[in-house]
């Protein structure tokens, strides 16, 4: 049948019916699909809440154990300035005291501003940010054992945890001097002092 032979008035009603049917069908499918998606979303959300709270509920005993076993350590770390704010003044005082005690011929120090630390080894930080402050030490030593003694003093007395990043020991003079004020060895060491704080910037208050 040619297009000109088509009597459109005869087809207008079924065509209109088809258009209306398609519109209604589309509306039905869209509306029902929207309802289904909304309900599926609500279910996912509520189920997630349920799983989370049930997990928390089931882990209460575990939490209790953690608080019992780990919280004292956490508090200790906080007080030592490892968790929370670093205690730079304590570091300086301990350095000075150690220099005096060990009668080091020379000790110069410089502490840089704190920076975010990216370890080369795997470290799960959770909600925390690990930061480091670099302490640069320039030492004049009568003997290399003085360096060991200084680091031991820091280990025992300084509030914090550090690692030695690099250290250079240089013979200061060809002939070994015996007087306490003489520098036989020069040492330049970089120490990284770690602090752990909340990545959100929120302060930890005990």
């Amino acid at each position, binding site marked *: 049948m040619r297009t000109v032979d088509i009597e459109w008035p005869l087809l207008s009603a079924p065509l209109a019916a088809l258009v209306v049917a398609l519109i209604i069908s589309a509306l039905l499918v869209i509306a029902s699909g929207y309802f289904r998606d909304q309900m599926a979303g609500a279910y996912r959300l*509520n189920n997630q809440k349920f799983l989370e709270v049930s997990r928390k509920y089931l*882990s209460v005993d575990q939490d209790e154990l953690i608080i019992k076993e780990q919280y004292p350590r956490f508090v200790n770390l906080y007080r030592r300035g490892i968790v929370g704010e670093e205690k730079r003044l304590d570091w300086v005082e301990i350095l000075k005291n150690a220099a005096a005690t060990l009668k080091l011929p020379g000790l110069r120090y410089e502490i840089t501003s704190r920076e975010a630390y990216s370890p080369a080894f795997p470290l799960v930080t959770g909600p925390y940010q690990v930061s480091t402050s670099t302490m640069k030490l320039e030492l004049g030593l009568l003997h290399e054992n003085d360096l060991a003694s200084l680091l031991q003093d820091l280990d025992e007395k300084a509030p914090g945890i550090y690692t030695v990043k690099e250290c250079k020991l240089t013979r200061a003079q060809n002939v070994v001097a015996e007087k306490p004020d003489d520098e036989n060895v020069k040492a330049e060491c970089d120490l990284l002092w770690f602090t752990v704080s909340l990545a959100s910037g929120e302060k930890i208050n005990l």
Partner: protein
Amino acid sequence: MISSLRSNFSSARRRALCIASDGVSLYQWDKGSITDAFVFDVDDVGLANFERYLGETPKVPIYLMVDVVEEEYRHENIPHLYGSDRQAVIERKQAWFFRGTPYCHVMMQGREAEGRRDDKLMFTAIINPDIVIPWVRLCTQNKVALAGIYSLPILSASLLAKMKVTSNDVLLVTMQGSSGLRQSFFNDRILKMRRLAKLPRLGTVPFAPYILRELGKFERYLTSVQLLKGAPLDTYILAHGETLDQLEQACRNTETVRYHLLDVADVARRLGIHGVLTTPFSDHIFAHLLLRTQPKNHFASNEERRYYTLYQTRAGLYAASVIALLGSALWSWFNLIDGVSDRQLARDAEKKAVFYQARYDREKGRLPPTAVSPADIKTAVDIVDTLTQHKAAPLGRMEVLGQALAGFPILRLEEIQWTVSTDPQAGTGAATPQVPPVPDTGQATSYYEIAEITANVYPFDGNYRAALDQINRFGEVLRSKYQAHSVTAVNLPLDTRSSAQIRGDTKDVSIPEKAAFSVRVVFGAEHANG
């Protein structure tokens, strides 16, 4: 004259209009059976009544069936062709056989067994189109869908099939109220010959002798054209009542003819026709057969079937609408079921969450307050533990180096540059180790302590070979005794590598006081707990 015309025509889903020489019958079909029948005269009055009928009834399709003497046929073989070539040959033959009529039809009746294996065709046509045209024109004028124009003899083949007749040579004999005695001969269930004879008015004369006389003529004709080849002719006669009784008494089987007398009412019942037929005529049966089977059009042109095409299009559009609605309703139903199910699940999950939250809050109330959550307490402690495990200090390795150097008093230490790294090659230009790495001890190396030692061979007597030997031995001791991962010479008193350049003056006999060198020593380190 209209014998059964009603002022209010009941609706029908399709209709059969049967045109014969003495009258035109119309059968209305609804819900699987014929519900009403009307008869129109073959004159202007009949046409006017038909037009009135068409105007007052819904425009449901009409199937027009013709049973007239003016339907002719020819058997012809044509070459076995395809497509437009075949169509051209057929049209040429039709124009040659039946000049001046648009109502032609051709049926394929097999192929020749031998030779070119030509196609065997039966051409048929209504040679007097004026019998049909007025009725068709009225349909078109009233925009009534004409499904097709059909030949009753051609349709009778399907009656034979319905009656499950399997004989080779069959003569089907039926009586039509408006047209007369129709005789159709089938060979292998293919229509080969047909004949229409006038019948006297019912009840005026005994039908049986008349029918048998007409059958005798047709049998003789079939024999003369050699369509009967010795096998007995199975003659099926549809009749009823007194006519059937007369035929039962008159028909005697012979060697050449076997009679099968069938009651029209029985046949109608086997075809599923509702009600009881009480006349010997088969008009109702053929109308039922036509409307039930709705065969392909025989004679009508596309132009005449235009409104039927539109009707089908309308039906298709409505069907598409219904399918779209049903499909979307079904889809929506599934969506709804899913949604309702998810809503219930969401409510259940919410209830459980609230329940566990309350219990958790109660249990949590027992715990002492902490600055951070217990999980975060553990994380913080673990971080510090890990950092502690990776804590590095130079003193241990320096002591090792001191011990190693103690075995070589000729080597005097000037400087140690110590650092840690996870890369044993850190800070080098990828220097090639002079000695291979220490075999794997099975312990994991988490970082490396790297010491770059600057020292002198002192005192130096000018013997570079001995000095290099001392340096090499020092390296060997570090490697073998102190488990150095690698020992690499950075600078040597005399660089003897092929890639290096050596320059000297034999006249210069001065000996340097010391021979400086530097060595890079790498120790693998395990963390504190490792």
